């Protein structure tokens, strides 16, 4: 009788679906993971402490799920009341029993042709009500019935043409809308952020990340260069329900490495934009790298923190940027508060009091090649950071790597890469990497753990005193959040860990999940018999 009651209870819960209110209060459901970042603010911290610094040494693989697709499997799962939702690289989505990894349903997107367009990654899903949402590499946003995996609607974000717009990010559900961004920053696109009606798939608004000539900011582009200006929006943004503001990172200007044809600051590339989620109207913007010529996208996670800033409680947005500076802004106004290097950089003397970088000489890519740090991959990138409110530290993966940047005038050809030449690794010294713990109030490093290679994995922190992350040799790792000591590791057998771990609870047991290669690995402590 007890068993039957349990099933009915579970069924009732999932039938209610995930309301907007539940997402706003996602941190009241510590057992679940309701958005790409776990909640709107992207702190990626969970008050779960079954797995601790003391017992993490016993952590072991509980189950694995094989997607059957190697490479580009970069999902961050959602977990809702024991059900896990994941996407895979080839337009596939799965619902799983989060305790056993057993499949509940599978969806496979129908691509317009047999072209090899499925190879780009997919980074995850959004859930709202009884629907889950994902984008596809042919630049569609699709809504699936969370109970069956059946297609409810699909919306074309941009007409798909090979070598132009595509989409990879996890959508963000805000109120009754699904917010998405677009990829193609190396293809001469003009970027945008879109909102779609969650019930119908009808587009509610579009914010162009590159303004046209007659719009504000249009004068920051030479001639017609804005038309292929780039400004991709390939990572999920964050949202403050109280301020009713979306925060979204914007990618590089295009062509990436050749700037002479697009003189000017090139707004809103390499910027953070604050938008009204109801209308898509710009509230403020801050540009980290004006007139970028090194592919230093600002798509890194804009994390929302409420901290005591110099004696006053302030609503902040922080970002460890690809250009090697850690930034703190006031998220109500966009006011620049702090910009401090966290890794090796040879491009800026400082960020001045107004928030504008003061450049070093000779930083532009050149026909002969210009050596500059950080490299094109950035001193960090889209891998998610985490903030632990107990240690009050910001943790993230740092890439210590420089490049030689080449440049030559490119010709825009629709459907072709639009780099403006090339780059290659510096040979003067080998790359290395760090897991870094930083005080977000000062930008000072509290501790570092050094890796042999520059990592691409995101981070997670828990009340068990742990940081979970991965390195570029395939190790999934647990660190002591206070000391930086490596406490546990497992070689997952794929050299490139690129997603971010999550943690959740089902039936009183804590789990940790991380994709590697074609596999979703889920870990737990051994159960006492």
């Amino acid at each position, binding site marked *: 009788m007890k068993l039957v009651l349990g099933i009915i209870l579970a069924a009732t819960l999932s039938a209610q679906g995930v309301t907007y209110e539940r997402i706003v209060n996602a941190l009241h459901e510590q057992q679940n993971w309701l958005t790409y970042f776990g909640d709107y603010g992207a702190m990626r911290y969970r008050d779960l402490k079954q797995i601790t610094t003391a017992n993490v040494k016993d952590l072991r693989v509980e189950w694995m799920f094989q997607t059957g697709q190697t490479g580009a499997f970069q999902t961050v799962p959602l977990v809702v009341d024991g059900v896990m939702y994941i996407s895979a690289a080839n337009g596939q989505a799965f619902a799983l029993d989060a305790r056993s990894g057993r499949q509940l349903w599978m969806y496979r997107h129908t691509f317009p042709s047999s072209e090899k367009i499925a190879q780009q990654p997919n980074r995850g899903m959004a859930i709202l009500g009884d629907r889950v949402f994902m984008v596809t590499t042919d630049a569609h946003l699709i809504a699936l019935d969370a109970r069956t995996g059946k297609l409810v609607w699909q919306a074309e974000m941009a007409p798909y043409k090979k070598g132009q717009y595509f989409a990879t990010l996890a959508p963000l559900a805000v109120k009754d809308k699904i917010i998405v961004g677009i990829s193609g920053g190396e293809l001469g696109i003009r970027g945008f952020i879109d909102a779609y009606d969650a019930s119908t798939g009808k587009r509610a608004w579009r914010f162009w990340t590159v303004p046209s000539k007659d719009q504000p900011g249009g004068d920051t582009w030479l001639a017609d260069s804005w038309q292929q200006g780039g400004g991709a929006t390939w990572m999920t943004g964050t949202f403050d329900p109280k301020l009713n503001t979306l925060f979204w990172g914007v990618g590089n200007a295009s062509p990436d490495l050749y700037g002479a044809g697009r003189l000017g600051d090139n707004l809103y590339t390499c910027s953070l934009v604050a938008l009204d989620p109801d209308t898509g109207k710009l509230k403020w913007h801050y540009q980290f790298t004006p007139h970028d010529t090194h592919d230093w996208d600002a798509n890194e996670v804009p994390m929302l923190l409420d901290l005591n800033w110099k004696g006053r409680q302030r609503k902040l947005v922080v970002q460890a940027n690809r250009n090697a500076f850690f930034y703190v802004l006031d998220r109500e106004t966009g006011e620049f508060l702090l910009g401090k290097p966290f890794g090796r950089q040879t491009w800026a003397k400082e960020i001045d009091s107004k928030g504008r970088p003061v450049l070093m000489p000779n930083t532009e890519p050149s*026909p002969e090649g210009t050596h500059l740090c950080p490299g094109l991959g950035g001193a960090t990138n889209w891998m998610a950071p985490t903030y632990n409110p107990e240690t009050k530290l910001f943790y993230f993966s740092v890439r210590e790597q420089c490049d030689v940047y*080449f440049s030559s005038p490119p010709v825009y050809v629709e459907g072709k890469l639009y*780099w403006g030449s090339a780059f*290659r690794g510096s040979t003067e010294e080998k790359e290395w990497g760090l897991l870094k713990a930083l005080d977000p109030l000062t930008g000072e490093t509290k501790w570092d753990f050094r*890796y042999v*290679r520059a990592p691409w994995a995101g981070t997670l922190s828990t009340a068990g005193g742990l940081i979970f992350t991965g*390195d570029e040799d395939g*190790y999934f790792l647990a660190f002591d959040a206070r000391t930086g000591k490596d406490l546990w*590791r497992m070689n997952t057998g794929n050299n490139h860990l690129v997603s971010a771990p999550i943690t959740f609870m089902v039936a009183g047991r804590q789990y940790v999940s991380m994709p590697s290669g074609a596999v979703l690995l889920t870990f737990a402590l051994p159960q006492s018999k």
Partner: protein
Amino acid sequence: MRFPLLCTLLVCAAALRAQSPADIAEGKATFRSNCAFCHGLTGTGGRGPALNTGHFLHGSTDEELKNVVRNGVPGTTMPAFELLQPDDIDKVVIFIRSLSQGSGGSAAVAGDASLGRQVYERNGCSGCHRIGSEGSVFGPDLTRVGAGRPLDYLRESIVNPSADVPDEFAGVTVVLRDGKRIRGIRINEDTFSVQLRETSQNFRMFQKSEVKEVIHETLSMMPAYTKLAAADLQNLLAYLSSLREGSTGGGVRKPEEIR
């Protein structure tokens, strides 16, 4: 009449395009930023094979050359240039072709290759290197080194091997807790472990937490042969340059051969 004429002109244009100076220049620009680092600015080679001799290691038709650029060469340091567009690759190949024009194939190397072989044997080179099925797997395989390396690079590799140590032959010394030192070629390494090959050709594998120190050698594991007589060196170079056609095991045996 107008249309056929136009078509003829187009055909001519297409044929000319295959070798136009503009294509060569574009190919050169792509080459400079993508290939020159290993193959040298003018394709004379370096860490990567020379591309100006008219000899190519992995097939010499245009299609084979494009395939090498597009997909790389598994088991070597030649990466796949997946980001290059098809016509960029076409132009790079046109540029590479232009490098060997007039070279008339391989330039003759002064010296006596058969005497050079004796120098090779006398100096115990096979204690570390392999030619065909003879010698050690410790150092670089020399079976086809003459096709892959220009003469200057070969000379430098003998008299000053530390001038360029390829990553896959970097030396490592592991200091054990009892002070014993194990030297070898680094096969693999991550933050927590390191795997070497000793001169005995055996694998040695360590957890870093279990040893005292891991030292990355900046010098080559190969001794510098600075005391070779000039004639010996020249003959040795002639011998190494002659190593072009041997099998490194990559060939496919046809059924009739196996039978």
